[in-house]
């Protein structure tokens, strides 16, 4: 409850890819779904896994691992699709595991310039530090934007 009352910071949905923690702004998260069958869409970049039927709505799904050039793993019981809505565009991202919701204050978020990471810097908004854990905050606008650009380039 404390987190909710605290108006200082923002809430983030924290998820795992491999051993790393990532966070997305909870405001942008519509729902979190278990893995479901998706249909491949021809002529799209490889990280576009396909589209799913989300209660009658067709939603494209992006595989974060492929997108960021990480090692591909088998899906497990914990694999989730986080459905996001970014600037009126719905899209899902596949993650290994969804952990918790964290509250991060402005002070606890650090500029990314000091870090090197597997991800391209473009997709990182900042790095949050809570209780000795490090959470990489994703720049969702960029994620939606870039995939669109790649789309056009094809």
């Amino acid at each position, binding site marked *: 409850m404390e987190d909710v009352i605290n108006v200082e910071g923002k809430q983030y949905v924290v998820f795992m890819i491999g051993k790393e923690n990532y966070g997305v702004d909870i405001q942008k998260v519509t729902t979190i779904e278990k893995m479901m069958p998706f249909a491949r*869409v*021809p*002529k799209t970049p490889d990280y576009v896994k396909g589209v799913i039927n989300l209660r009658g709505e067709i939603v494209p799904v992006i595989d974060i691992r492929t997108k960021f050039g990480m090692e591909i793993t088998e899906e497990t019981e914990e694999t989730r699709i986080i459905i996001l809505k970014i600037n009126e565009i719905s899209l899902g991202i596949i993650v290994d595991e969804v952990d918790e919701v964290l509250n991060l204050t402005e002070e606890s978020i650090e500029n990314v310039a000091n870090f090197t990471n597997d991800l391209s810097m473009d997709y990182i908004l900042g790095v949050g530090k809570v209780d000795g854990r490090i959470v990489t905050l994703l720049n969702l606008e960029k994620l939606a934007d870039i995939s669109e650009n790649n789309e056009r380039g094809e």
Partner: protein
Amino acid sequence: MDMSQYLEIFIDETKEHLQGLNQSLLQLEQNPQDISMLNEIFRVAHTLKGMAGTMGFSRMAKLTHDMENVLHALRSNEIKVTSGLVDILFKCLDALENYTENIVNTGNEGNNDYNNIIAQLNNAVNKKNVEPVSQKPSDVQQTQKVEEKGNDNNHATAQFKLNQYEQNVAFKAKEMGMNVFKITVVLNKGCVLKSARSFIIFQTLERHSEIIKSEPRVEDIEDEKFDYEFTVVCVTKEDIEVFIKDINSIAEIDEVLVTVLDSSDFQAGALQEANTTATPNPSSEQDSGSEDEASSDKKQDENNQGASAHKTKTGKTVRVDIDRLDVLMNLVSELIIIKTRLEGIDGGERTQAYSEAVEYLERITTNLHDAVMKVRMVPVEMVFNRFPRMIRDVARELKKEIVLNMSGEETELDRTVIDEIGDPLIHLLRNSADHGIESIEKRKEMGKSAAGQINLRAYQDGNNVVIEVDDDGQGINLEKVKKKAIERGLVKKDIANTLTQKDIIDFLFKPSFSTQEQITDLSGRGVGLDVVKTKIEQLGGVVEVETEAGKGSKFIIRLPLTLAIIQALLVIIGEEKYAIPLSSTKEIIKITPDQIMMIQKKEVIMIRNTVIPIVRLDQILDVPKDETKIPKQLTVVIVKKGERLSGFVVDSLIGQQEIVIKSLGKLLSGIKCIAGATILGDGNVAMILDVNSLAI
């Protein structure tokens, strides 16, 4: 020909355009450098001109024509956008709104020429100084009043006069020791039922007095044919205070002006003098004070009147926002998905009652779907029918003989498309009449019949509706187009000579491209074709042009039916399911691999002496596949794209099914070979193939 049935369309479209014009003008004022706004305004003016011309509203057409001249000069940088100029344009907008209001109320545009606005427009083009801003709005007001006065003496509010009889009554009353008041009531701008409110005021007044004159007339007030104020003269025994108190107790009144009239007033014959001395110009004060509001209010007022006029004219129809139909359509789509799913439930578990219920559900959903579709579908006749008159007028104006032949008027299109297709077609027809058809003398010289033929044809072709406009005129002068393109710097001279016919024709669709030297009322400004192209592409269609020098040219518009629910053939490729719109499929055949032949390194098959190219869908769509298996037989779905046939190779067929077209969303928009997606009965998603881009 009776145009009244199109009046409603005209009014609706005009109002929409005027609203757009208003917004564009506001934006232009904010940002005078904005060329795109200027283009937008120009297009609206051009469209309005065309529409007004079609309906025979010549004053409106004249005004928009002169507007266009100014805008054209602005666009070509001959003059600069100044606030004074924007003001003039706003005045034009007001004038156009007044015309529209007249049309709503009376069915014709009225007889105000707005010569002063036209003069200002012309001055602007001639780079003369534009009059200062502050004067403008009152100018409009004045001319209106002067004009009105010309028509009907009793109508002018500024010069409120009693006629002889009324003067006598007032004079007698005065003699008998009664008071004569002139009362001007200004209603609140938010007042909804003006006539009812006025009625209450009249009743209140009549309790104490006798009303001997009302301006506007009582009938007009009852019909709400007034702005927000009216003036009455009444004869009474009561004092002025009683009146003010009574009237002030009525709600929704902004202002009441009571003037006592003396015998001298009507003896002198002119009430107007008393006005100026007793209350210094009450009405004009009111006018100038709320000028800005007034114009917007007038607009609202006009809408109200428009609505009531509609009610009386067309009681049988209801105008429904297309968005609401879309919602309805989506709901029907959902219902169909569920129905398909129910049908698919395994037969073993079915009881008879269940089967019957499902069958009944199926009947209802099918009927519901048909009904909703029908609501949205409108025959193109609705648009076509206004063209013959237009062509006749155009022909007369150009001193040409033109015969317009129309066919396929019964072809139906989705309402959204119908609403948009009118303007592009007007442009194309005018183009054909103006540029295409030659003068009578020239036609005779060339051995053609004196009368030029323009054919307008509509027909359904698979999932498309095709509209063709062709003429037997001179065709497009490609050399001239090429020359013009070089002149305007669209292409370098050396490259120009290597261009194909299609490339050259494409120049015609560039903004502001015109080969016509002389700007006529009809076309030649070069706004036509780029508007056509933009519009059609917005609707998801394409425009093609065929032309032959001396023989004529043909514009072909291909529009999607934009049906949300279609019949489709479901096929399996590899492990994936795909849907092919049934309307594009011609037949399904099975062939053995050795029937495939190679022509110019392309795979083809021969069916009944027709060579049909083969499209390996699995390769084009990169379907993951087990390469080791070589099938003994291939299933080929023959699809048609226009006249041409192609054979799509698939692995197997599932069957025919009603599917709901869903968009892939913004993120995945613009994928070439996929037209959309659909949700199958089992909840899985299948891609819908875009036959037009896949077929060879």
